């Protein structure tokens, strides 16, 4: 109980990932969906860094580093698209985004 092992971190990462997954499932607002995606990416980062620490390997930290870079660019492009969509349709609800339905 008192010694923190890799399993502790993996369980924490799993819990956070599940929270993010629930957020992705139940949110209808697209901005909130973005927040849930950030939670998913962060939970994976924790797992990567913890494995990197307990195996004495730097690769995990490098992967977490690149994940942060990808998350930052995803936010930039995604928010740009979102602002554009909101200007045009005045809503960012997922249910209203049925324009591309065949």
């Amino acid at each position: 109980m008192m010694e923190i092992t890799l399993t502790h971190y993996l369980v924490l990462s799993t819990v956070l990932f599940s929270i993010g997954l629930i957020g992705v499932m139940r949110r209808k607002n697209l901005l909130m969906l973005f927040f849930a995606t950030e939670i998913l990416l962060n939970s994976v980062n924790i797992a990567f860094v913890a494995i990197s620490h307990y195996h004495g390997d730097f690769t995990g930290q490098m992967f977490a580093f690149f994940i942060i870079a990808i998350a930052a660019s995803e936010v930039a492009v995604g928010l740009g698209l979102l602002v554009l969509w909101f200007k045009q349709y005045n809503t960012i609800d997922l249910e209203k985004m049925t324009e591309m339905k065949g």
Partner: protein
Amino acid sequence: MFEAIAFYMFSFLTIAMFYITVTTKHSLYALSALAAGMIFISAFFFILGADFMGVVQIIVYSGAVMALYAFGMMFFDTTRELHEKRVNSNLVFGLSGAIALLVVIMVSAPIVGDNLVAQSPIDPSIGNSQAVGIVLFTKYLVPFEVAAVMLLVAMIAGIVLAGKDMDYSFSDKSEEELDAKLETEVVS
């Protein structure tokens, strides 16, 4: 001892913050809770000895990404309460199944990983930031450059997408000019 206390405290705080993020009805609460959760996550990186990752987490997530979201939210109607999807039972079933599978895989991953050899071992005699630099600029140089180009592309895309009509200054114009512009926009 202190590591255990810090771990349990920060995991409780992180889970609570992220739980607020996915359940609250106000988007501003969600934003603040998410920013707090990001900062608490950086504490795990410091506990794990990944100092550089902790600093990057605070700067990039709590600084850049949260500021970007805060600016983005100025465009949206954040005072309105959020409507939620009505969850059907099929979805709940699939979700819980997926999560259970995920738990099994993640918890059993270190058992599979016991016979792994470290590709780039951590040298305890040099600091974390220095070691990150050594690995990043030798072994991962090409992915690093590609990530740099990707960030540049994302920045230009963000400017092009969101920055239309930015050269038009509203504060320089008189009332009549603004009214005229509004009328032309309504007509077009």
